[in-house]
């Protein structure tokens, strides 16, 4: 194996452009503030001088002779009449002014200290310290900044202050850029290293501009509007201002105008150059366009979300992609995605014409580009490429001609058709299942659609979520996506080695309704429901009181693959709920559901035992079919049986209400009793706790018991005829606790696991007496959601709810950052054929992937092999039968 040495960047060095360098790299000295003459030709020595590069195709550069795509552009320059501060270096100028002597130019440190600092810097360079060079520099500068008497020439230095943005003062007297520049020129090279400058590439006086570089025209191109009107770039506008004021300043200076006028012009020049660099400098009014829009100058081009970095360099946009709102479609397979016609006609796949597909290609091209309204969708063609790469746009008019012309080797940009492989993605892409491969199914209307089981891996819902779709363009990509990224290949999550997709919500309710107590389904209804799926044989007919029925469990059995033998505990496995054991124990014998109700534990995502079994035993394709059939069956059942919930589902009989009220009252008095005992000193501290903590935990215990009791009462009075209970018991949505809170008692509202305690002095709210630590005063809610809460209860409930919101907000941002760091650290690691984890230099990160070489998404809940399953299967094979 080749072990190439990858090159790392050990160091990046920044320098300053010296005036000489600016002149040297300049192709033209710009002296005229104008751009084009009346005939539209660029003015010589103007801001659009052709020596600075070409932007019009066909023309050649005056400097390098290159055409538009060859000429890199060339800088020009402006000789400034007076020096001006560079806004980007104000901080550096300030600290250098402060740390050097205004008389002799030396850094205001003794020779000994200088030596010490230099030694330290040398050590840092040799990586003997963990500290940064920058830290030493700021130490040195702040130490020198405090010195008043220069240790070298004994001159008494004055205090320097900065009037933001660009005015320096020495004890009130203004320092002109010219004076500052003169001071900086005196600083010896040897002292510069202590100020963070390398004299070879950066002299401090270069931070004060005397020559101004004019960027190439490529950087600030003229835009010609459709009306023929020309519009200049914001940078050019700013440069016009700079040249104009510079000219006036020079004239006035040469004429010997009054100092006041010169100073005003000088300040104006400083303003224009400042805003040229950064038009959002604090303390400076932004320069504006005639329309009132503020100009986008250099810093604005780079900074922020719309800046060069985040928008253009980190944020890439791609072709062959689409984005729209998503909606559910239970009649699609989990492997499919519904693509609207409008998108399908826009998205294309490039196919090469061969002997074998010429006829098909001709037919497709003959259809032209098509339109959205056609009743039936047939893929058309948008573009055709000849062998030399030249492009023909296919239109309704020329489609027949183009179809006749094509030859083997031409390329055809064909519209999307059913069965094409595409990538489908929802942000935030937090795990690999956030981007999966689907087969296209072109559908009417405007949304992307998919099977509801796929909501979980994407974490999608349909309250306005949008998703992205990418059409794969090469055969290799399609093959790879189909093998690795297809939805069915991602059944098992690498996070917990179990199925991440499964039945959700109404699918579970429907399967439960179909199998709980094995209902009789009238034959016509049963046939209708089963017509949605592809069944091998019709289940046996049961006659009852002269009418014909199917048994619900038999209908469910039709979607099971062959030879399924399994027994497991369902959610109804409970002595009280299911005394006869006909519902809680799910038993399937030779693909026939003989006992038990199908619920979340059988087919739910991540815990569906039956689903897991089917996927592992029969593979992903059969697993996908099982889930597809299940969703279709579920849609049929629930629409025919009908299922709804309303507020009267939370109605409990009068006696239950009385019991619930009693539970609330009882716990409040119990708490009062505890507090009384505490006040009378009858409670001793538990080990490791203060007396107060002991009381608190005793109270909490009483109150949580109240909620449990209320839950018990609610469950007792609300039976399986109640829709909400069906959802909770089957695991479709919610749990009995939620129900109890709606019908019975909401219970204690807590913050950070404690009873509500913050608020006013010695009480939570002014509604209570001071030092009241009773149940109500500390956020115990005895009302139910259905009855409604009283004002204090409502307040405590809101504070408790807010904690949840804050927690999620904090958690998402933190885990997002953590994830980003992890991804950046791990993104270019790879697993070799020897299952070794290597980095880009082929250095070993892990000798065997995961130390056991197991792909967690092919594992059994993290274990390499599911021994129990294997033993059972082998036993069955050897001794036959599924019973016992």
């Amino acid at each position, binding site marked *: 194996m080749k072990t190439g040495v990858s090159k790392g960047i050990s160091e990046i060095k920044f320098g300053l452009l010296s005036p000489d360098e600016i002149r040297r790299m300049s192709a033209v000295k710009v002296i005229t503030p104008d751009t084009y003459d009346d005939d539209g030709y660029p003015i010589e020595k103007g801001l659009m001088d052709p020596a600075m590069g070409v932007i019009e195709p066909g023309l050649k550069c005056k400097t390098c002779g290159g055409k538009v795509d060859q000429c890199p552009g060339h800088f020009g320059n402006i000789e400034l009449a007076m020096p001006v501060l560079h806004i980007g270096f104000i901080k550096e100028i300030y600290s250098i002014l402060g740390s050097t002597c205004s008389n002799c130019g030396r850094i205001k440190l003794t020779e000994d200290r200088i030596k010490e600092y230099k030694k330290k810097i040398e050590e840092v360079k040799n990586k003997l310290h963990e500290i940064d060079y920058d830290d030493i520099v700021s130490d040195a500068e702040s130490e020198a900044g405090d010195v008043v008497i220069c240790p070298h020439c004994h001159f008494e230095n004055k205090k320097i202050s900065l009037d933001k943005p660009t005015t320096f003062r020495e004890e009130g007297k203004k320092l002109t850029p010219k004076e500052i520049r003169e001071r900086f020129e005196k600083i010896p090279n040897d002292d510069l290293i202590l100020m963070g400058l390398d004299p070879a590439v950066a002299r401090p006086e270069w931070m004060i501009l005397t020559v101004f570089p004019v960027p190439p025209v490529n950087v600030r191109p003229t835009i010609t509007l459709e009306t023929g009107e020309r519009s200049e770039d914001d940078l050019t506008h700013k440069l016009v201002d700079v040249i104009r004021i510079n000219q006036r300043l020079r004239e006035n200076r040469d004429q010997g105008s009054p100092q006041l006028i010169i100073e005003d012009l000088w300040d104006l020049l400083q303003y224009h150059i400042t805003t040229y660099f950064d038009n959002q400098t604090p303390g400076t009014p932004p320069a504006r366009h005639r329309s009132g829009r503020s100009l986008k100058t250099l810093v604005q081009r780079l900074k922020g979300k719309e800046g060069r970095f985040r928008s253009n360099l980190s944020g890439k946009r791609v072709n062959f992609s689409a984005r729209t709102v998503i909606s559910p479609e239970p009649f699609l397979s989990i492997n499919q995605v519904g693509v609207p016609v409008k998108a399908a006609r826009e998205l294309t796949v490039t196919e090469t014409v061969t002997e074998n597909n010429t006829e098909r290609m001709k037919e497709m091209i003959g259809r032209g580009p098509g339109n959205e309204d056609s009743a039936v969708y047939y893929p058309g063609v948008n573009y055709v490429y000849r062998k030399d790469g030249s492009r023909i746009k296919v239109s309704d008019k020329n489609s027949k001609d183009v179809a006749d012309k094509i030859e083997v080797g031409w390329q055809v940009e064909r519209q999307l058709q059913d069965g094409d492989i595409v990538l489908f993605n929802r942000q935030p892409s937090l795990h690999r299942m956030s981007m999966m491969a689907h087969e296209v199914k072109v559908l009417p209307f405007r949304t992307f659609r998919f099977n509801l089981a796929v909501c979980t891996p994407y974490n999608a819902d349909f309250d306005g979520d949008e998703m992205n779709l990418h059409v794969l363009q090469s055969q290799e990509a399609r093959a790879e996506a189909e093998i690795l990224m297809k939805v069915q290949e991602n059944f098992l999550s690498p996070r917990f080695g179990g199925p991440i997709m499964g039945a959700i919500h109404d699918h579970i309710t429907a399967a439960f309704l179909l199998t709980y107590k094995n209902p009789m389904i009238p034959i016509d209804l049963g046939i209708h429901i089963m017509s949605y799926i592809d069944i091998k044989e019709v289940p046996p007919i049961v006659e009852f009181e002269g009418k014909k029925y199917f048994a619900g469990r038999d209908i469910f059995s039709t979607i099971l693959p062959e030879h399924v033998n399994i027994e497991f505990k369902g959610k109804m496995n409970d002595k009280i709920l299911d005394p006869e054991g006909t519902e809680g124990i799910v038993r399937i014998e030779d693909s026939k559901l003989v006992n038990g109700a199908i619920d979340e534990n059988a087919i739910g995502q991540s815990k569906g035992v039956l689903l897991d079994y089917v996927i592992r035993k029969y593979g992903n394709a059969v697993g996908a079919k099982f889930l597809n059939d299940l969703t279709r069956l579920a849609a049929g059942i629930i629409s025919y049986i009908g299922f709804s919930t309303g507020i009267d589902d939370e109605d409990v009989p009068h006696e239950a209400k009385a019991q619930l009220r009693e539970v609330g009252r009882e716990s409040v008095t119990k708490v009062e009793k505890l507090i009384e005992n505490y006040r009378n000193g009858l409670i001793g501290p538990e080990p490791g706790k203060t007396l107060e903590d002991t009381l608190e935990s005793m109270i909490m215990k009483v109150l949580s018991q109240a909620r449990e009791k209320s839950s018990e009462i609610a469950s007792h009075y609300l039976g399986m005829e109640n829709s909400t209970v069906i959802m909770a018991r089957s695991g479709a949505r919610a749990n009995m606790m939620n129900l109890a809170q709606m019908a019975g008692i909401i219970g204690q509202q807590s913050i950070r696991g404690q009873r509500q305690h913050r608020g006013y002095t010695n009480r939570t709210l002014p509604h209570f007496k001071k030092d009241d630590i009773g149940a109500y005063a500390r956020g115990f809610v005895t009302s139910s959601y259905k009855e409604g809460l009283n004002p204090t209860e409502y307040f405590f409930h809101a504070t408790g709810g807010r904690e949840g919101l804050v927690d999620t907000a904090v958690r998402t941002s933190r885990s997002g950052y953590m994830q980003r760091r992890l991804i950046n650290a791990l993104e270019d690691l790879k697993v070799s054929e020897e299952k070794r984890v*290597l980095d880009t230099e*082929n250095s070993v990160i892990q*000798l065997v992937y995961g130390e*056991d070489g*197991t792909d967690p998404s092919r594992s059994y809940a993290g274990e*390499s092999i599911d021994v129990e399953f294997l033993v059972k299967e082998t036993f069955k094979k050897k001794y036959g039968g599924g019973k016992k």
Partner: protein
Amino acid sequence: MSKFNILYHEMVPEHILVPAEEEEEVLKALNLSKNQLPKIRKSDPVIKSLEKITGDIEPGRIIKIVRKSRTSGIATIYRMVIGE
């Protein structure tokens, strides 16, 4: 220096200095060049403790580490000693 030897702590996995003459064999079995191995600093407390038993360990030597693994029970890995 404390008398406590970190190598005896139950949280510290077993570190073994691979004899110089066995190095080639180990690398051959792994099908790796020495530089591809993960590194361990000579200044690492474990190496310092190990040196008390084996004498000076020069950069370039290989350390065998046997540790408990959540996935495979016991995992054996190798590291190359580097300076500093």
